């Protein structure tokens, strides 16, 4: 369990910087086709901002923003977006992930439809990567103990010297 840090300076600076880090992560996801970036890199930066929040503010204070339940919902939503776009192209009589079939729904030419399809897939990947990173960090730091069941788990066994 990570306890709340007693330091005012680090808490204030991280509270000021975290929204800008998240905006930069969204920029990296959106500009994946032109500059270095894309879904995975943007998701990692997003997850790193939440890890910074958890490190500086402690587990009990930050739980309202980044609980395990929220992360499960986000990761499932990310995979749903990715597979959903793929199956939508399949339903419209194309191959799996053949974005040019989306041109009928969106009323644009096939080249634009391909670009928009890739953007949608990157957003889904970004969500999933962010949720998995935060969920792994929460798992390791709390030892697998969920907030409701702290009383049931006993002390870890003491090694004999």
């Amino acid at each position, binding site marked *: 369990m990570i306890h709340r840090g007693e*330091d005012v*300076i*680090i808490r204030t*600076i*991280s509270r*000021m*910087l975290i929204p*800008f880090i998240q905006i930069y992560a969204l920029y990296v996801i959106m500009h994946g086709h032109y500059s270095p970036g894309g879904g995975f890199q943007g998701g990692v930066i997003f997850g790193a901002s939440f890890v910074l929040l958890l490190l500086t503010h402690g587990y009990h204070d930050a739980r309202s923003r980044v609980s395990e339940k929220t992360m499960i919902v986000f990761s499932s939503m990310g995979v749903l977006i990715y597979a959903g776009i793929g199956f939508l192209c399949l339903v419209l009589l194309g191959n799996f992930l053949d974005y040019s079939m989306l041109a009928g729904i969106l009323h644009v030419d096939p080249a634009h439809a391909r670009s928009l399809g890739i953007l949608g897939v990157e957003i889904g990947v970004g969500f999933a990567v962010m949720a998995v990173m935060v969920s792994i960090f929460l798992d390791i730091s709390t030892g697998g103990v969920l907030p409701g069941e702290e009383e049931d788990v006993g002390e870890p066994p003491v090694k004999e010297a």
Partner: protein
Amino acid sequence: METIQNLLSGFFLLGGVFFFATATIGLLRFPDFFTRLHATGKGDTLAVTLSLVGLAIHEGMNVTSVKILMIAVFMFLAQPTATHAISRAGVRCGLEIWRKEGKEEKP
């Protein structure tokens, strides 16, 4: 105009390299952990700010130079905070403070 740009950016970059060099010499030669943190925390921040301003001047009026100045502002905020965090951890863990030989403790 271009000559002035080149001269200014070269001047700032040389200042940055000078402060990097003094920070490195401080990191190697100082006797204690906390004094080394002084050298690298302050010297590196100033050197990075000067170098980034020099590179932004060389680039001209562009979106890229605004991004480079954004890195400079972020480093100006974040590097002293990281130094503060690690020095606080050092005090908590009880690292011993270096004192000069031959001086008695003032009561």
